[in-house]
């Protein structure tokens, strides 16, 4: 790391990360206090260890010039595909999806595949700048790149993450110079794809979740239960919230998977409208700062990488919060920096580390 990079160290970005991680930890301590699978103190202790590890990984990712990643992109990408393939062979099935490697350590390769896909696409768009892409057929190669990990994740029966990975890839769409009528074509294709997905890709319980989302009162005690309880938790937070570790929905465990997928409900119940809005603001600030990093990068690869990495943070956060607020079906996607879970936090750490990396080296050229 040269002197100039250290001089340009992005303290604002690091501060935003630190604030969000702190909020996340405080909130998780409350969510876990009610007693969760694995034991309250175990969960909190493990989460703190993972945060420590994440900071280390972030530092590591920052220290090596990100431009090496362009050279190694195919290796990284193929490596991630290999891990995804490995999960299919020796993976552990949890909650209906065969997405985890090793039962004890539970590493979820699809979390890392998102980042690897972004690295690969950044390399592609560096060589074929999106502003030069004017026709749909020019998208065939990047689509094929994206289709590889998405296909493997679909084979794991992990719908949520597959959709998420697709959305991450679609982050690049606004950068393209494709005319309006081509977008119409994409819309038709997307609709057809969704219909096909519904009939062939979705399991009955997944279809149920979507139906529950469209009509939450349908069966409040079975599959709509989670969504209903989450909305009750969020709503009962009111303006200022019930207070830390005071939310009854949380502390009496009416909330399902409250320390992982529904961790934002805990925040909303206990910190109310004010607390939730503040956290949303910090999240938005973090993402916006990421876009600014992309904008200010003098290097095409760095800019493309930064845009994609913002996507890997934005989409899971959006899907997760939309689900918690009853705006989207229940999809098992964790909230970055808030949810308990090693792989998600680690992949976020890599993404944030790379963003920091790009930010630091914006004057290198």
């Amino acid at each position, binding site marked *: 790391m040269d002197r100039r990079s250290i001089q340009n160290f992005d303290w604002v970005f690091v501060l935003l990360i630190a604030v969000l991680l702190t909020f996340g930890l405080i909130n998780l301590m409350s969510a876990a206090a009610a007693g969760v699978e694995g034991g309250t103190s175990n969960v909190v202790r493990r989460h703190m260890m993972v945060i420590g590890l994440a900071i280390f990984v972030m530092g590591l990712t920052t220290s090596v010039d990100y431009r090496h990643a362009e050279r190694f992109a195919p290796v990284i990408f193929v490596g991630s595909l290999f891990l995804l393939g490995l999960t299919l062979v020796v993976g552990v099935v949890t909650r209906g999806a065969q997405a985890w490697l090793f039962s004890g350590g539970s590493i979820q390769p699809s979390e890392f595949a998102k980042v690897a896909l972004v690295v690969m696409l950044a390399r592609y768009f560096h060589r074929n700048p999106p502003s030069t892409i004017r026709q749909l057929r020019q998208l065939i190669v990047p689509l094929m790149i994206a289709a590889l990990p998405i296909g493997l994740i679909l084979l794991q029966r992990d719908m949520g993450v597959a959709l998420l990975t697709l959305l991450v890839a679609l982050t690049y769409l606004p950068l393209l110079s494709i005319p309006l009528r081509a977008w119409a074509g994409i819309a038709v294709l997307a609709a057809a794809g969704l219909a096909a997905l519904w009939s062939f890709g979705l399991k009955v319980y997944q279809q149920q979740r979507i139906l529950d989302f469209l009509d939450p009162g349908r069966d409040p005690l079975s599959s709509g239960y989670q969504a209903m309880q989450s909305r009750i938790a969020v*709503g009962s937070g009111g303006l200022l919230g019930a207070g830390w570790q005071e939310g009854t929905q949380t502390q009496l465990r009416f909330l399902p998977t409250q320390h992982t997928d529904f961790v934002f409900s805990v925040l909303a119940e206990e910190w109310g409208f004010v607390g939730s809005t503040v956290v949303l603001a910090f999240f938005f600030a973090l993402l916006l700062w990421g876009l600014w990093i992309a904008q200010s990068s003098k290097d095409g690869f760095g800019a493309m990488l930064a*845009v994609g990495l913002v996507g890997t943070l934005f989409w899971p956060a959006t899907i997760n919060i939309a689900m918690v607020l009853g705006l989207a079906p229940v999809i098992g996607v964790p909230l970055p920096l808030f949810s308990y879970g090693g792989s998600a936090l680690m992949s976020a750490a890599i993404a944030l580390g790379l963003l920091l990396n790009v930010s630091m080296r914006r004057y290198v050229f």
Partner: protein
Amino acid sequence: MIGKVAAESRLPGADEAPSELRIGLIALIMLAAFAIFVVRLFQLQIVEGADLASRSERNSIRTLRLEAPRGDIVDREGRLLATTRPAFRVRVIPSEVRSSERAYRVLGELLDRDGDELAEKVGVPVGRRRFQPVALETDLSYLQLARVESHRYALPGVVTDMTPRRHYEGERTAAHLLGTIGEIDAEELARDAVPSYRAGDVVGKSGLEHRHEAHLRGKLGGRNIVVDVAGQEIEVIDEVDPVPGGRIVLTIDLDLQRVAEEAFRAEEFSLRGALVAIDPRNGEVLAMVSEPAYDPNLFPGGVGSETWNDLVSDESRPLRNRAISGQYPPGSTYKAVVAVAGIAEGILDPEEKVFCPGEYRLGRRTYRCWKRGGHGEVNLDQAVLGSCDVYFYKLGVELGVDKIGEYARKFGFGSPTGIDFQGEMPGLVPSREWKERARGERWLKGETVSASIGQGFNLATPIQLAQAFATFANGGTVYRPHVIKSIESWDGSAKRYPERSASLSAGIDPDVIRRVRQSLIATVQDPDGTGARARVEGVLVAGKTGTSQVVGLEQIKGLEDEDIPIRYRDHALFVGFAPAEAPEIALAVVVEHAGKGGGAAAAPIAQKVLAKYFEKHPVEGSPVLTASRRGGIDTGHGAETIAPGEAAP
């Protein structure tokens, strides 16, 4: 700012960097998403906040009813007859059971029950009933409780709690007196005399449990609790303690009650019948037995329909309280009443001798004395102690049925005693007017002959017999029998004596009663007396035996005693009191279909109860001498029949 930096820092080779506009588009999409979130948060938390918060409360707050333990019923010395003990139950809240098939299988193993059966019991309730607990087992053993408790975390929706449960100390002791409890039925619920009852509540169904339901029940308490998603109690918000049910102190003496019950059960096969013992000084019932009895512990927690059917269809009718509902011809015990009527009406001179040839002719019919060959010349004492029928046939015919009835009613026959109990029968004292009214027939003179020895139409309940002889014992006061000494609050802070000694005078000259009492003493104390088997060492016992015919003699003519079918066999009666000079206990014993006379079948039961009583309350002074001397003094005219030294064999 973004644009400025980008514009300034554009370097050669970096011209592929995305334009500001395009990146701004992405920022706009993100802004839109976060704006939607803030709006949605505002909608849920501010606009719908109060509504959703109350739903959150409903989620977690439950109101429990705290059942009050039912009040104790104790005997006169404070010994428990009925009490309340803790019972542990296990219940299932259907809405909270997860992976029900496994849950019921595990529960089945823990409770040693069939899992499918449990699942069936809970069923698949809909609507609000999903949230209402279904009891699977209401009285867990400690082992079962420990098993369920230790697996509770693996069984969401399964809850255990403690409830008060009625327990009767004696197996069948005083069963009819105590009565039964059971789940409230629709009819009782509809009556809503007490509004706080709910389906599934336990109420008294018979006996004291029924009569004093309001007092025994106590007052419900309530508790608002916070529960978690599995229905487990997390925290108590507020609580109103239940007020335990009040105590009822009976006049019953458990020792006498037990001795009396055992006397019926001690025989080779259990006897059927009833016994009532009364304190003649105030009408307190000391013992009330009806045999056969049932085990009242069958009822708490719900009597099974099979058990219930068995009890109802049992030919021996164990549920019936014979002491107040059984109506029997009083037989020769009635002669004491007829004797009082004779003396009081000036028709009978007790010392005048009447010849008994063994039969009595009236018109064309002949009425036999029970003693073939007759009693010979007998005065009143001899007629009573030998239970001479002819003597009383003559007296009865001279008095007429209406005069006999008049005196019988003074002793309390023919109408309920007023003991505060459901199901008391009035008995029957016949008269001319009654027969015209009830049967539309004229009274026949021959029927007066039967009436004068307590046969024919006459019917009396054991409690009436005991009350009547208590009146003989106390010299002419009719006390209303009662079983309740006091009604108290659970902690004894408030006491009531609702039934203290309601009495009225029989309206009979006490001298007349005293005179007949001598004959009753002779009946027990004379070596030839029919009631000799009721004698108690050291105590002067008075009494009268009776044998009441169940069917006409023609039906069993020529049969040896043992060949007579049980249902045709005579009832045996004994009624008496002691100590004769200052009576403390009067009692009536009826043994159904004994096949033996009252002296042989009923007197021994009375003897056991009296012996127990005087073991607890010894007569002062040297028992034998006292008895003899007092007997000699008191009996006066009858002194010659009670030879000192023979008084207590």
